[in-house]
């Protein structure tokens, strides 16, 4: 990496010259004085004078200002040479020869972690600016910073959204370790709900297409059933969609649900929704914040072609014990956090459970049972400033019983262990081991059909990440890691041995995904910020597994199997090697205007195969192998960003084009359950998506809010050898999550210290659907005759939500402030009760031989809710 060399050389020179200069000074000290008039000389005159004394000077003419006037008051030779050098030059003395060269001064580093003063949480991405200059730096993803500067006095501004800025005066004479603690902004009115990009982007550059949601601040807008939810907030940002009101997962910039890398404390989450898609698995209490990388994904992240969504759990308050919780119509939450040893170690433990079941049991409305739970836990230990240890875990569980006998359970489990080590004040490291498991289990105790079925996806991941703060103008992140994937597509075993059922078990799949990456950020001049990222990823699919060979140039069907190859344990079946360049360029015009262009390549080796419209918990994950190629995407983004500080407004416009190759589409009528030859049920194709995203936000003040608009297109193409496998004759067709227009407006108004009201309005083009272009009768059943996929649309979607938040009294009757903080949230989702179509049902009218079209809506009425939250 060529760009690395100059800083290293420069640094070695500093050391070398420092030693040499000291030597020279020692030598000169023995030298005596000589006659010289104490008056003003020009540099040229003084050199001539000294040369006449037998000294000789070597220098380059272009850096020596010969006309500079010097006032001589002593006749010591060292003093005189230093006078000639001034601030800008250094010298080297060899005998009576003096070599003048540009001064390279040693820099000192201020480094440390940046934390919230009230609870010790690391604040990721906080910026530190050197006031009066364009220099500055952002803390890395673990809250560590290192700022290297020449000796001198500096005014520093430390800024993080939602916190009081911290102003520091530093007299830098040596390396300093400084833990910075920020105080949360006192005034609610100054808070920001959703951050789209850092206001200090002049310093660090803007990563295009990044959205952050800070949980502390996300609670102000209305939510369905009053459950604060990161997915619901995300849907109000440009470029993030889902298919409908109970659809699982997110579609980022026209990408499929499995194309998002979803991490919780660096461990993969495979299924991120509860409750049929209404609520995400992330308990807002236990979460610090979420970052969405929609387009320009740093090379740190990989393995998915659309986006990276990183959810970070809180570390736990290291100052005082806190109990917090809340109660809504759907769930109850409780969290305990506190120090194990103040300033050194803390823990957090949190639980959320639905109690919908108890309500429905009492009401007797329904026999079916649905519930979910989330448990989050985290411990951290900081024995000293150089070493930090973290252990965190998430366990989620969903349960559904159909009211008869069939019981289904699914959920994610993750464990992450991390060690942050500071090698030197400018070299930070993070070592991670994580384990992630998604399991689905179904049991049917019904006598004749009794069985227990299960499937799971697991990964074991290890990685090392380094941040090297080379200078305030350049930062290098690099690292490597490996993920071991183990997929168990399905087992079906008899519950008890009645002799009816035979056990069925599908071969498990194994893959290893090693990678290395580097990401270099460089500020060039005052206007340019460049990111050069590169990721090299490999994938090894290995045995034990039986691999089928199919007739070449024929559709992959069971009937076309010609051979079976058995691979033994650990034997390599197929490998893939890929290079993923990721580059972006920022140009800052000044006065708050920035443009940015970026290019991003990504590969994906694990795919979700689903034959339903929205993913369901039973869907199958599949590794890339002999028959299924990895998908890869290329994304180009061009953005313009504008800050209008006078009005507290910021704005961005981004245009993107993304093409994805080797996407996976199920064949029509695919059977995915316990299928040994899953490759025969899918077909690979291409996707493309492009669009324009606009976003305007007012961050502070009594009235806050944002407006987001997306104009986009998302299409797929399945062009198979065999005509019957093609979809829409091999032409591009709109994907299920194509939305031409998508508009949302969120507003928050603080009436006084206790009351805040807010509202969301959403308007979007209806999603594409397939109409039956005819009907017929077979076996007395009226059936739709479908033709081309997704050629029609549902009616447009729109909805208005409102909410009000009432803060509890903060002052006791005796005038002292209360320690307990509490508030109520009242909200109404879908205020005017619009019956937005989720889909149309094309079916036979009951008890008739006629066909009918039925609009199917999920949340087709207004839904009020009330939630109570507290913290001790």
């Amino acid at each position, binding site marked *: 990496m060529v760009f690395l060399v100059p800083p290293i050389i420069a640094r070695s020179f500093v050391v070398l010259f420092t030693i040499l200069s000291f030597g020279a000074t020692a030598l000169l000290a023995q030298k005596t004085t000589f006659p010289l008039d104490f008056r003003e000389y020009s540099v040229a005159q003084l050199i001539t004078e000294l040369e006449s004394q037998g000294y000789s000077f070597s220098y380059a003419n272009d850096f020596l200002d010969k006309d500079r006037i010097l006032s001589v008051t002593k006749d010591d030779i060292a003093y005189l040479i230093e006078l000639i050098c001034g601030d800008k030059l250094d010298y080297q003395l060899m005998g009576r020869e003096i070599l003048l060269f540009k001064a390279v001064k040693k820099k000192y580093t201020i480094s440390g972690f940046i934390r919230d003063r009230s609870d010790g949480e690391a604040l990721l991405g906080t910026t530190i600016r050197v006031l009066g200059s364009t220099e500055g730096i952002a803390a890395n993803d673990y809250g560590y910073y290192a700022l290297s500067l020449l000796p001198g006095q500096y005014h520093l501004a430390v800024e993080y959204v939602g916190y009081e800025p911290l102003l520091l005066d530093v007299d830098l004479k040596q390396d300093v370790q400084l833990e910075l603690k920020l105080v949360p902004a006192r005034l609610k009115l100054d808070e920001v709900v959703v951050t789209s990009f850092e206001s200090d982007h002049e310093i660090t550059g803007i990563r295009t297409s990044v959205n952050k949601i800070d949980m502390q601040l996300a609670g102000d807008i209305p939510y369905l059933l009053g459950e604060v939810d990161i997915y619901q907030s995300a849907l109000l940002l440009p470029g993030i969609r889902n298919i409908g009101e109970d659809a699982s997962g997110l579609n980022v910039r026209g990408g499929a649900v499995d194309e998002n890398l979803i991490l919780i404390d660096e461990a993969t989450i495979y299924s991120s929704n509860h409750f049929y898609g209404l609520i995400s698995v992330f308990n807002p209490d236990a979460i610090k914040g979420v970052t969405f990388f929609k387009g320009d994904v740093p090379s740190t992240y990989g393995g998915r072609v659309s986006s990276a969504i990183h959810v970070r759990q809180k570390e736990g308050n290291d100052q005082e014990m806190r109990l917090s919780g809340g109660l809504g119509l759907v769930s109850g939450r409780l969290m305990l956090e506190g120090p194990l040893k103040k300033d050194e170690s803390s823990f957090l433990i949190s639980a959320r459970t639905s109690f919908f079941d108890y*309500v429905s049991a009492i009401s007797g*409305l329904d026999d079916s049972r649905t519930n979910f739970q989330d448990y989050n836990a985290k411990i951290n230990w900081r024995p000293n400033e150089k070493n930090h240890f973290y252990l965190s875990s998430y366990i989620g569980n969903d349960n559904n019983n159909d009211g008869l006998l069939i019981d289904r359970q699914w959920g994610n489990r993750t464990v992450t262990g991390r060690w942050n080590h500071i090698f030197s004040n400018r070299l930070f490291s993070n070592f991670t081991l994580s384990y992630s498991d998604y399991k689905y289990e179904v049991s049917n105790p019904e006598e004749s059909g009794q069985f227990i079925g299960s499937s799971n996806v697991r990964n074991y991941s290890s990685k090392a990440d380094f941040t090297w703060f080379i200078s305030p103008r350049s930062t290098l992140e690099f690292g490597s890691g490996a993920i071991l994937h183990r997929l168990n597509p399905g087992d079906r075993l008899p519950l008890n041995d009645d002799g009816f059922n035979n056990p069925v078990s599908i071969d498990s799949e194994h893959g290893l995904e090693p990678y290395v990456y580097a990401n270099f950020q460089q500020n060039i001049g005052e206007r340019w910020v460049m990111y050069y990222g590169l990721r090299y990823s490999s994938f090894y699919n290995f045995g034990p597994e039986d691999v089928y060979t199919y007739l070449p140039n024929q559709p992959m069907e069971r009937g076309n199997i010609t051979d079976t190859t058995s691979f033994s344990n650990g034997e390599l079946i197929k490998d893939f090697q890929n290079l993923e360049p990721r580059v972006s360029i920022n140009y800052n015009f000044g006065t708050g205007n920035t443009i940015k262009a970026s290019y991003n390549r990504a590969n994906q080796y694990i795919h979700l195969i689903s034959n*339903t419209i929205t993913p369901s918990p039973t869907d199958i994950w599949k590794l890339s192998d002999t028959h299924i190629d990895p998908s890869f995407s290329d994304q180009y983004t061009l953005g313009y960003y504008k800050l209008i500080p006078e009005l507290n407004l910021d704005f961005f416009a981004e245009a993107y084009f993304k093409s994805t190759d080797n996407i996976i589409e199920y064949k029509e009528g695919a059977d995915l359950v316990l299928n040994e030859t899953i490759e025969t049920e899918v077909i690979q194709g291409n996707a493309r998506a492009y669009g324009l995203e606009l976003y305007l936000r007012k961050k502070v003040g009594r009235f806050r809010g944002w407006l987001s608009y997306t104009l986009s297109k998302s299409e797929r193409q399945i062009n198979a050898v065999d005509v019957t496998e093609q979809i829409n004759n091999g032409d591009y067709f709109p994907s299920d999550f194509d939305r031409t227009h998508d508009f949302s407006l969120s507003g928050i108004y603080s009436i006084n210290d206790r009351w805040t009201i807010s509202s969301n309005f959403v308007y979007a083009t209806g999603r594409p659907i397939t109409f039956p272009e005819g009907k017929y009768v077979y076996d007395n059943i009226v059936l739709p005759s479908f033709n081309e996929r997704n050629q029609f649309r549902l009616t447009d979607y729109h909805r208005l939500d409102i909410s009000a938040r009432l803060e509890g009294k903060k002052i006791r009757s005796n005038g002292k402030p209360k320690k307990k903080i509490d508030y109520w949230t009242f909200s109404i989702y879908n205020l005017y009760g619009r019956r937005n179509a989720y889909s149309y*049902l094309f079916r036979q009218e009951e008890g008739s031989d006629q066909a009918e079209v*039925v*609009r*199917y809506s999920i949340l087709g009425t207004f839904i*009020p809710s009330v939630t109570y939250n507290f913290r001790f």
Partner: protein
Amino acid sequence: MLRLTIISLFLLALASSCEDPIEIDIPDGPERLVVEGWITDQPGPYEIKLSITNNFNDTAPNPKVLNASVSVMDNRGGVFDFAEQSPGIYLSSPDWEGEIGFTYTSMIILSDGTQVVSSPEPLNIVPEFDSLFYKEVFPPTIIDGIIQEEFFLGSTIQDPPNVDNFYRWRITQNANPLIDIESIIIFSDRFVDGNDFQLEVPQLLFGRLDTIVVQQESISERAFDYYDLLIAQATTLGQSSGTAPAILRGNMTSQSNPEEIVLGYFGAAAIVSDTIIIAPDN
């Protein structure tokens, strides 16, 4: 109390995701030929029905296909012609019976010369099943304080080992064949191969003194897949975890234009049957 009201409202909202019949314009797609016909090992005549798709909103019956030449061939050179008995309905000669172990292919020539053939369909032996039994639904449904007496059917099927078997049940209740989608019952021996396994059909409920006839048919794997998708399309289409809309491909192809889609299915099956009268002692 307010809280309870709110909760009930919410429950209502969620429990009854609403369905409203609506009128929308649906354009006319390509007109497609639909073939429906089955050969069995029981006495004929067998029927092959030919019709054409019409607009989804059309209230008129599907147009029939007249004056086609319809025949079925077996794999040993036998050719059996079907004659148009009424518009679009073609019947075989009553003295011909399908035989176990044969495969049958239908061949249709439309009046415009278009040739349509089916894939060869095996007429497989059908495994026996034990006498039918019935069970009472428990706990019983109560409507207006009256306990409903409801029963469902079951039987034990003797599945032969090491061969993939696919089954269909056709049910007749008091001499009326059940023809709605819930009455199309198909199952396979995928998880029970070679075992005597029990099948229960809890979704069809019968009353005291009903006479029920069950025909057990051996259908082919392809016919099973066809019905599987047909049932999914007729019942779950459009719902949130329902199947995605797709062309329901059967086993008919147009020889004149292989890209043209022909709907429907021509199948063959052997049949065994049993009768039960629901007459519990108490």
